């Protein structure tokens, strides 16, 4: 550790702020980064939601005049791109960041500055993508950017898409590496893999999926960018390129991406259901291994997005089979969640309602997913509102419900205050009803022949009523989100102070105060069991029912460790804040602008990133002699 014998030359004085703007800009604390991820992704969620409302206004009746075709196409492209890359992925990352170190008994992630870098790249990548609205128009080729359309669309929109997603991919890759190393190497003593909380397990699976999936889309985006900006012909059919190649590349990334979006929510649900049933997760091993199985099988189903491309009956049959059988491990999870509820003592707090909503809605999304595997019937459903219904049941009814479940569940841990239970329940019921009103009718519309991505439709197709119902439902969802925001503000101002363990929960994050001290654990815990905290609190009588451990025994011993006072905290070495992750990240969008507008900006961006990385590599994790 005594490497820095000579004084270092550096541009910045090592920052030390822990409060205020500078504190946030230079933080390497996984908890603060988690909060930054959460707040930023929520802002993008509002933007993506407003886009959705505009789309729904346009489609509320036939021959809509509210948006022009160009505006509609930009908005549906940005809605999908936003919700996937700027909402569900980073919201999941918010939970990974905040919780994984707490759940494994660690003080931070393995690479705290890399973690900060991931966040800044995500934020700036999102801002880069959205700046396209003011710089000549947003992308309008769909989130799936099918070539050759994505190559020939005029304007800079699709350049922003290709470069923006490339930047966001850097953030995902960096955080994937970080979480794999963190989960494998930073676990507290005794925290064997089979004692890991299921949410942490799903984080590990998702991180591996990201590690392998992001390079695939990175290459595809390089090819698309090269075709657009440099005049290459990878996907150009008039010059020997193959437009179908893009589809293979995109979905080879895109289907694992679906599991990247859903597995974190499944992890959250696997934490919430046991806590509010007062029972351990039923079939822990089965839930974990089915998650891993989904992670593997998710790579073998990509062509089910391409059944109508004309791949021929052999390929279609093979991908029909693989798609059907990925339903098996998914079903295993659902049955184990039912087993968890069975015989429990269920408390209907808001997090539990959202988790139950997740299970109920995900069943519908899963079943409609099976109907897509029936290739001949998919020839009818492909690219219709039936598909739109399916993936909203999975990604909204699934991921978003799960993420809200997690938001309420860990709200007291993160903020140190309770939310209002009545508002939480109002949010749930408004969202459940609004969600089903919005997306339920899409099944019918799709079967009645309404294609996706149409900015208008004529009267007389029989689509008027359900489109109108759907638009009403969309505004109900908006009202539910407003309820959530009111609750958040109320909680910050008036919320009751939260205890360390308000839910009588099971995992290590609940063994420390709310909000946790910056060093997390005053003393690294020694883990004796899966659901370690529960076993510190309860033993079992002969019938297998929990009995509180006698006060003054194990619990207090751990409490002493958990509630380390400030005095104790000062002796703990934590990584110091740093400017360099932000500096290195700031160069990336500049490189993007440079490739679109003028090379000189790209050079500036490159120098900034290289400079940032250089300063970073010379800077120790923690200053010598600092606490």
């Amino acid at each position: 550790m005594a490497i820095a014998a000579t004084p270092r030359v550096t541009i910045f004085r090592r920052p030390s702020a822990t409060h205020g703007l500078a504190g946030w800009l230079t933080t390497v604390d996984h908890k603060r980064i988690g909060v930054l991820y959460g707040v930023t992704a929520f802002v993008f969620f509002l933007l993506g939601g407003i886009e959705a409302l505009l789309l729904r206004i346009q489609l509320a009746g036939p021959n809509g005049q509210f948006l022009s075709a160009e505006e509609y196409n930009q908005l549906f492209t940005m809605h999908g791109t936003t919700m996937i890359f700027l909402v569900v992925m980073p919201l999941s990352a918010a939970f990974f960041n905040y919780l994984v170190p707490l759940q494994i008994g660690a003080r931070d992630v393995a690479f705290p500055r890399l973690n900060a870098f991931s966040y800044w790249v995500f934020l700036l990548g999102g801002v880069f993508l959205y700046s396209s609205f003011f710089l000549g128009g947003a992308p309008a080729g769909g989130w799936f950017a099918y070539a050759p359309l994505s190559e020939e669309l005029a304007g800079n929109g699709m350049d922003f898409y290709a470069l923006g997603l490339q930047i966001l991919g850097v953030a995902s890759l960096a955080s994937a590496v970080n979480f794999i190393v963190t989960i494998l190497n930073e676990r507290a003593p005794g925290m064997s893999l089979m004692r890991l909380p299921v949410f942490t397990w799903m984080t590990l699976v998702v991180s591996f999926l990201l590690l392998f999936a992001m390079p695939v889309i990175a290459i595809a985006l390089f090819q698309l960018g090269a075709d657009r900006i440099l005049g290459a012909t990878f996907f150009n059919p008039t010059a020997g390129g193959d437009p179908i190649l893009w589809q293979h590349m995109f979905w080879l990334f895109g289907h694992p991406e679906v599991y990247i979006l859903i597995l974190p929510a499944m992890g959250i649900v696997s934490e919430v259901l046991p806590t509010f049933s007062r029972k351990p997760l039923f079939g822990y091993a089965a839930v974990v291994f089915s998650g891993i199985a989904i992670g593997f099988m998710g790579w073998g189903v990509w062509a089910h997005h391409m059944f109508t491309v004309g791949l021929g009956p052999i390929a279609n049959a093979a991908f029909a089979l693989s798609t059907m059988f990925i339903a098996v491990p998914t079903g295993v999870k659902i049955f184990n969640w039912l087993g968890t509820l069975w015989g429990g003592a269920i408390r209907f707090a808001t997090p539990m309602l959202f988790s139950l909503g997740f299970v109920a809605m995900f069943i519908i999304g899963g079943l409609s997913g099976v109907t897509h595997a029936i290739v001949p019937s998919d020839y009818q459903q492909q690219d219709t509102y039936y598909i739109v219904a399916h993936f909203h049941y999975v990604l909204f009814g699934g991921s978003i419900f799960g993420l809200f479940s997690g938001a309420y569940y860990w709200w007291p841990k993160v903020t140190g205050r309770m939310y209002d239970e009545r508002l939480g329940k109002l949010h749930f019921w408004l969202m459940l009803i609004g969600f089903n009103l919005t997306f339920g009718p899409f099944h019918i519309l799709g079967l009645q022949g309404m294609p996706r991505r149409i900015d208008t439709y004529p009267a007389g197709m029989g689509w008027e009523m359900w489109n109108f119902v759907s638009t009403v439902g969309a505004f109900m969802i908006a009202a539910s989100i407003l309820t959530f925001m009111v609750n958040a503000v109320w909680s910050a101002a008036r919320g009751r102070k939260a205890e360390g363990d308000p839910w009588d929960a099971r995992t290590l994050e609940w063994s420390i105060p709310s909000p946790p001290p910056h060093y997390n654990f005053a003393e690294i815990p020694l883990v004796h069991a899966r659901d370690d905290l529960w076993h510190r609190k309860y033993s079992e009588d002969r019938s297998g029912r929990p009995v509180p451990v006698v006060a003054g025994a194990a619990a207090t011993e751990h409490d002493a460790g958990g509630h380390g006072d400030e005095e104790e905290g000062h002796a703990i070495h934590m990584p110091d804040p740093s400017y360099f992750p932000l500096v290195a990240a700031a160069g990336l969008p500049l490189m993007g602008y440079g490739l679109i507008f003028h090379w000189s900006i790209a050079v500036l961006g490159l120098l900034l990133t290289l400079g940032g990385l250089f300063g970073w590599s010379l800077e120790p994790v923690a200053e010598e002699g600092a606490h």
Partner: protein
Amino acid sequence: MALLSACTQPLPQNTLSPSGPVAEKQADLFFLVFWIAVGVFVVVEGLLLFAAIRFRQRRPEDSPVQVHGNTRLEVAWTIVPALLLAGVAVPTIATIFELARPPTEPAVTIDVTGHKWWWQVEYPEFGIVTANEIHIPVGQPVLLRLTSDELVDQAGLPVIHSLWVPRLAGKQDVVPGRVNDLWLQASAPGDYSGQCAEYCGLSHSRMRFLVVAHEEADFRAWLEDQQAPPGEPTEGDAAEGLEIFTNPLPQGAPPGSTAAACVACHSTEPGVADTLGPSLAHFGSRSLVAAFLPNTPENVARWLRDPPAVKPGSKMPDYDLTESQIADLVAYLQSLK
């Protein structure tokens, strides 16, 4: 109301009101899986609801037995769904191969080319070219050979479309540089509404078409009509319209356009394929203008007044035609029966 009327008059693009063997098989398979899914839905959601009600916490001191799992149950709920899926897989795979080829030699083979945003429909055996309408005989398989192309450089790259007539058959993507086959068959004469199902840019939603199924004799009659040379009106507005149609416009070519005469892009002769704009042969007998509007004199006039305003992204520019020129052209085009 909508449900009631659906029973009497099938919705134009309802996949569940099939009118041909391909769409019927697809709908049958959908319903098979749908009812199985409904069964699973009722059982699983029922269990969920039952568990949530039955096992709710009644007293704060309720302490459930700490069950960790059950291997037999795990095996059961892995194997039972797998068997169920294997059962569904059998008719699925069988139907994939069954629908891959028409059961008998197709009655007619039609080349359909997707453009932004209209369809060229060519009957190579009969020397007929039309647009946005596919006429077929009933009761016999028909083969569509699909590809995508753009004929002018300034129209950009050809893009992927997807041809879909929901009541006759599921969709087939239309990919530039490839020829994809789709066969379909209509059980009853009539108009079947179709539209492009793959997002293809600005006017994707306005890239519609009709399949018109005829009894065998009517189909033959249609073929003969289409093979006839265009009439040449000699007097009245229609004759004036022909004059405008064939000669460079007095207004000249608008900026960015090289063609100032209608005939530069559109042919009225039967069998002339790959013109820059859709063939207008026997235009007066067609049901659609601009691939999505009913072919009425009002709509044709509206179109001629400012094509890109009617159909965003249209390659046909606004020629600043006068109202009398428009009236003449409408009369001429409607005369092309």
